[in-house]
């Protein structure tokens, strides 16, 4: 699959953004290739932190990754989502074209860093043990993450990719994009709500 492609020229549009050349739509990248070296470097650092048992680095990956994951989910679900819902469809399309490719690389990276580092951190600190007083909360956090994973991987990501591929068509189907975007926004809202639960659980775990 060509990860980069140039969408065919759209028909005359009243709300079309400025294009680089007459009749040419800007290139739509499903996966922003320029971000991949950053993703690769981040994952290498994660593996090094795990292999080196660097507690500070594991803590950093877990806290920073988790904070970004939570913030992005909440911001997308409760701020950007409702705003996008009220935008005119052409504006929504242009915004989505720029936002969604970035989400394709950002979210999986944040999720892997947060979960892998968190698991190792919990192992080192003895939090995984059933004798740990807050073990029930820890299992609850794993359940919440599992629900988020099902929603994100089963609904969000497929909708995201399907929308991006629809944008590449000469004449994207507005009705289909609208339907998929609604699914995306509602799923982001659900994961946002689950993130609130995660924040409560993690606050509880951090304070004992």
């Amino acid at each position, binding site marked *: *699959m*060509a*990860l980069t492609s140039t969408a065919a020229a*759209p*028909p005359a*549009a*009243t*709300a*079309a953004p400025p294009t680089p050349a007459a009749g040419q*739509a800007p290139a739509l990248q499903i*996966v922003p290739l320029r971000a991949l070296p950053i993703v690769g470097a981040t*994952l290498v650092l*994660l*593996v090094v932190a*795990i*292999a080196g048992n660097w507690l500070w680095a594991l803590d950093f990956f877990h806290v920073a990754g988790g904070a970004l994951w939570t913030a992005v989910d909440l911001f997308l679900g409760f701020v950007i*989502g*409702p705003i996008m*819902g*009220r935008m*005119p*469809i*052409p504006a929504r*399309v242009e915004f989505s074209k720029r936002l969604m490719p970035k989400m394709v690389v950002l979210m*999986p990276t944040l999720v*892997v860093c947060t979960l*892998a580092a968190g*698991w*190792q951190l919990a192992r080192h600190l003895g939090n*995984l*043990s*059933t004798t740990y007083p807050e073990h029930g909360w820890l*299992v609850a956090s*794993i*359940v919440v993450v*599992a629900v988020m*994973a*099902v929603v994100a*991987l*089963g609904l969000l*990501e*497929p*909708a995201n*990719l*399907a929308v991006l*591929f*629809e944008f590449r*068509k000469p*004449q*994207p*189907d*507005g*009705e*289909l*994009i*609208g339907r998929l*975007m609604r699914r995306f*926004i*509602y799923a982001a*809202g659900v994961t946002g709500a689950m993130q609130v639960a995660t924040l409560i659980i993690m606050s509880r775990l951090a304070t004992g």
Partner: protein
Amino acid sequence: MHVDERPQAAGSVRPGAPTSPHADAFAGRPPIPLVCVASMALVLLSGIYLAAYLPRRAPLGPAVGLVAVAGAVLVLAVVLVAGLRQFAWDAFFGVVKWALVAYAVIAGILEFVFVYDGTRGTMLILLTASLFVFAVDIPVLLGFSVARFQVPRARS
């Protein structure tokens, strides 16, 4: 959340005017995305079950059962996809190929964590099988989700 459904001025994307002749071609067919999600959920359930017992070793029977059912459900999903006619296979394989690469990297990191933590024997086999189901299931789901809305290439 409010989603604006009002008709909009004509643009490059035409609201309410489907241009994908196959947009609804899969309505009423076996729910392949649901089958994939079920497989994923079973794998996650197995993981939660095992994690709940740590650091003690959980009785492996239920976890093996869950992963086995997840694998069977994944096979069902693949069979359902393979049986499709009028399907955009080039789009499907285009997405699956790169998604497999991405999820192989993710599964590889997780496998490294398990091995690094000293997981061995049946438990390692079980976790590896879980990761395998996970790393194949999601690409199939992503590939189908994209290809179902693409126009199949005409056969010459």
